């Protein structure tokens, strides 16, 4: 079983969080061919797979994390949570800097540092969502394949 944590916190201005990965549908379609996926998140978020577990407690998340062999997510609390429990995963970066907010333990996929927000410490409401800032699903799949081998 593989966990996906697809969304960062909702923004107060209603805009798309610039950390949200734009190619989940394509990515999930490919992974699902061989793998059961559990999506974690909150009520109101777009459902990407059949098994969508909303509003889990930290205890429940930890149990789920231990059951999984892998997880894929964006830069949200979950990557820190998995780091705390020593569980490696894939983090899909765009505008936030993995050198500041990331953990070496994970596979940190950043397309290019030129897409990073110039100021890393402001509200993300000030940054536009840019689909070009993310790696394509093929690259994520490559790293997943590598992990299985």
């Amino acid at each position, binding site marked *: 079983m593989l966990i996906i944590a697809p969304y960062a*916190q909702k923004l107060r201005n209603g805009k798309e969080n610039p950390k949200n990965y734009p190619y989940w549908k394509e990515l999930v379609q490919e992974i699902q061919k061989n793998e059961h996926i559990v999506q974690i998140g909150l009520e109101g978020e777009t459902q990407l797979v059949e098994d969508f577990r909303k509003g889990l*407690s*930290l205890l429940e998340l930890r149990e789920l994390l231990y059951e999984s062999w892998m997880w894929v997510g964006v830069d*949200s*609390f*979950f*990557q*820190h*949570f998995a*780091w*705390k429990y020593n569980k490696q995963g894939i983090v899909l970066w765009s505008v936030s800097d993995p*050198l*500041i*907010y*990331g953990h070496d333990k994970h596979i940190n996929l950043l397309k290019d540092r030129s897409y990073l927000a110039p*100021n*890393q*410490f*402001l509200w993300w409401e000030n940054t536009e969502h840019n689909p070009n800032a993310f790696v394509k699903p093929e690259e994520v799949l490559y790293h997943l394949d590598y992990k299985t081998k």
Partner: protein
Amino acid sequence: MDKVLCSVATRGRYFTSLPLVLFAILNQTKLPDKLIIFDDNDEIQDMRKEPLYQHIFSILDFKKIDWEWAFAEKKGQHHIHQRANSLGYKWVWRVDDDAIPEPNVLEQLYTYATEVSKVGKPIGAVGGSILTMGMVSTVDQCTGKIEDIDNEPNIQWGLIKESKFVEHLHCSFLYRAGIHDYNLGLSRVAHREETLFSYGLFKKGYDLLVIPNCITWHLKSPSGGIRSETKEEMYHHDEKIYRNILELGDRTPIVLNCGLGDHIVFSSILPDIPNPIIYGCYPEVLPCKSIAEAQETFGDLDQWNIYKKMDEWGWKGSLEDAFRKLYQC
């Protein structure tokens, strides 16, 4: 050499003690690298038009003292001091607008600050005697410890005969900048601001010193000055914050007014922080008191805002290391 900023906060003293203070600064045996006069007057004036100030500014230029006249936000002198604290200088010499330093004061303060730091713990701040004629105290027996603050005169109110480590300072002193923030939760009157600030340096592990042969004359006046507010509730408000902070004793306040992920990252450094008392948003990650309680206790939480701090520091390292820097562990 480490750079020294001299910061003078002024209000209501354009034509009384401020010119004397500026003359005393430009007559120091060690000159500051920069002088900033923070003008907090309700009705500001262009002092370049005043003959007396024209002379002062010309002499500053003649002596090649980099100086600046900055307009303050009218929020109280703690906001001014925090501006000075965050300008990137290694040391800040804060001089009140009614405090006239003898010519050797900065040299003495700086020498002690830098020389004592070489042999012991780093010095956080150094102060000399602040003497008000007619009110000079005998301070030989004073400890300068925070626990004695209500039971003894301030050690700087008397002639200091030998250097002594203390836990808080008063009025004008030289301090290591960028280590501890001023409490911006205080009211405009900023009652106890320097005690809270200097004690904060002490609590962060820096030594505070009072030294001999270093006299500043305090021309205490009933009018003018940065504390010319008279509203009693402001004093009560500030006194409450001050007492709350003193009550913490040797506990280290941790304030996590931030996201869930930040709490998780912070939790990794918690074992390295002595005697913590935590205020936060996610008790399921770390057992904590509420942020509302922190606000009530400290008045302002900006000094613990990790994002503001990383921005100030131009941070390039990890979030975990930023927390380590903030909490000095």
